[in-house]
């Protein structure tokens, strides 16, 4: 079906055909290898479905949510973040962010699919979900809203992406607005899934929804930088002046967001230490069995190292940015993992001081769980690698994004507006060299 796309549609979409995948031997090999690993992971997961998850997963009655939920959260957080950060440009109209839109929305869909595949292997009866989410909804359940809102969100993303492909920017903007609305609703609600469990002190409170949104934007920033830098490694021509500017802008935003999350983390710990309810869980992360996760992965890889590297890269050095955001994505995965576990490792009856619950609960992910998470994340990456080739590296055709009365500046790559009766040249001069003169003109 896809092979038969009309020529002009294909051109508009930047559709290159699946043959383009074979253009480079190494590229195809990597693509095929990752694809095979994904399939293997899914096969292991299906084996689990067949034998029964309770036989092969590491989760228990006391810790019912493990690495699958962490992986799911990692994917949907990244997806929401990609959507939110890119919306600054193509939905809310801040020009420097515009060029990232196509790749970001594509990745956003890819990660959402990855997340859904992971959660598919976590939920015991997904077929019932399809039926009873509709027939027997519980409007007070955050879980119900999660399924519903993420469903709507994915739908909005797909519509948005279609119009982006089709270069219908007013429609894509409208769909994008819905994407942002559903994304924020779905994602803050995901925070509330944890934040509204009043039997679980570590999570309980409004902190979770707020933290989820901010850290989503941070993840989104990291993902955009990481995958754009990777795209340049694949194909140098992607690196246009406009893209450079866009990435620099995203880099600045990401640095700011890291700083905000650092400060969130700091106060979460300080307030946790003085709260008798949270103390035990916090200690497990500061000095206990989860300390390496927290200090090295979460804080080091996820926040401090990228913070320093991104500042040093000045938003220009793609190699540094690539390394920084690579670290970041690994660190962010651990952040999600730690967050999911932290609320569960303290037994609910610990205050009874009974023998059965005298120590922290432990959880180790099983092979099946790790395979499924790997497959889920790899699906997003495989789709990305495919997309880079088949969809012509998500390049915009120039004219499509330029609003009427504006043009793409040869100098800076940005979009400038022309005043009435002004030529492009004059406008360029006005925007760059001649600002002061311009003002003097007006005074005179």
């Amino acid at each position: 079906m896809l092979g038969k796309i009309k020529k002009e549609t294909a051109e508009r979409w930047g559709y290159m055909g699946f043959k383009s995948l074979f253009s480079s031997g190494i590229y195809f090999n990597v693509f095929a290898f990752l694809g095979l690993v994904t399939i293997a992971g899914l096969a292991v997961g299906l084996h689990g479905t067949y034998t029964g998850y309770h036989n092969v997963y590491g989760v228990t009655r006391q810790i019912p949510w493990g690495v699958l939920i962490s992986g799911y959260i990692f994917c949907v957080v990244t997806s929401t973040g990609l959507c939110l950060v890119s919306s600054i440009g193509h939905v809310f109209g801040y020009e420097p962010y515009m060029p990232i839109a196509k790749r970001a929305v594509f990745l956003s869909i890819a990660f959402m699919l990855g997340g859904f595949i992971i959660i598919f292997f976590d939920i015991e009866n997904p077929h019932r979900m399809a039926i009873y989410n509709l027939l027997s909804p519980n409007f007070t359940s955050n879980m119900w809203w999660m399924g519903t809102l993420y469903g709507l969100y994915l739908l909005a993303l797909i519509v948005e992406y279609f119009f982006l492909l089709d270069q219908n920017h007013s429609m894509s903007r409208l769909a994008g607005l819905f994407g942002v609305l559903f994304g924020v609703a779905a994602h803050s609600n995901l925070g509330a899934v944890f934040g509204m469990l009043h039997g679980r002190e570590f999570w309980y409170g409004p902190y979770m929804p707020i933290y989820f949104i901010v850290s989503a934007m941070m993840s989104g920033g990291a993902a955009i930088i990481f995958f754009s830098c990777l795209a340049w490694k694949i194909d140098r021509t992607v690196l246009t002046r406009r893209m450079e500017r866009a990435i620099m802008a995203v880099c600045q935003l990401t640095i700011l967001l890291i700083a905000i999350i650092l400060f969130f983390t700091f106060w979460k710990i300080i307030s946790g230490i003085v709260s008798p309810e949270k103390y035990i869980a916090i200690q497990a992360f500061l000095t206990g069995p989860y300390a390496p996760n927290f200090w090295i992965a979460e804080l080091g890889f996820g926040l401090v190292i990228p913070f320093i590297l991104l500042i040093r890269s000045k938003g220009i050095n793609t190699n540094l940015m690539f390394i920084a955001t690579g670290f970041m994505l690994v660190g962010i995965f651990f952040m999600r993992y730690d967050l999911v576990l932290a609320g569960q490792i303290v037994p609910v009856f610990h205050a009874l001081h009974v023998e059965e619950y005298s120590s922290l609960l432990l959880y180790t992910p099983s092979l099946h769980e790790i395979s499924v998470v790997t497959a889920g994340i790899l699906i997003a990456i495989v789709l990305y690698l495919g997309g880079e080739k088949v969809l012509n590296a998500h390049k915009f055709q120039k004219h499509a994004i330029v609003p009427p009365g504006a043009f793409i500046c040869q100098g800076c790559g940005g979009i400038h507006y022309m005043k009435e009766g002004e030529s492009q040249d004059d406008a360029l001069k006005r925007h760059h060299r001649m600002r002061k003169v311009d003002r003097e003109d007006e005074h005179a």
Partner: protein
Amino acid sequence: MKLTNIDLEKLIPENLISVTKMERRAFLKIGLVITGVFAGGRILSVTSNVSEAFASGKDFVDQYPYKPHYSMVIRQGLCIDCERCLKACKETNSVPDYGYRTRILTKIVTDAVGRKREFIPILCNHCNDAPCTRACPTRATYKNKENGIVMMESKKCIGCKMCILACPYEARYFNAERHAIDKCNFCWDTRLSKGEKLTACSYVCPTGARIFGDMSDPDNVAYKMVHQVEKQVWVLRPESGTKPNVFYMKATRSSPWDLRKQDGAR
């Protein structure tokens, strides 16, 4: 008048908080120092003003909105960990080996005189304000409108395990044979709906540690147990605000004479 009102309002949460915190530090100590009458999950008083709590009789009525309002009173201290209840539960409700609906926890008090171990039976509290039913996306778990039992409609359970996390009492587990969450339902399907008066566990308990009854009936034994002035009654984890319907009270097997004998022996 207004002033006293404000004072009262302030007083109750303060008590709640201090109880919770101290409970976390040393549950035993608190059991000795502060004793409370908790009904429907709310601390109504500390010993110093038990009478006050009982004066507000209407509160109690409001706490038991169901008819019958099933409830269980655990007489902690009588339990000897014979686990006949566990066996009866497994047989009656076909609970698999990897799961349980009720469990006996062991508490060791090293500096106690005489017996050093105490057993605490736990089960679903059939909370009046059940967080599990709020959390369930498909209403697969729900509170029965007549008798207040928190039940499962297995065919609707998608197995998301949200309710396991929402429950502050660890009362739920995933049952692979039912393809759904399983939990205590006071033997509704297996016994009560068939005319039996007691749950399996309460029926087999040799020491009377599990008293099952109807809180909406002032003549019922469970009601009477909880509403004695001289008894301290509490619920587990009151800070979760779930208004549990499983009440705990101490029942000691050692009389002062026994203790004196122990003294003599030493």
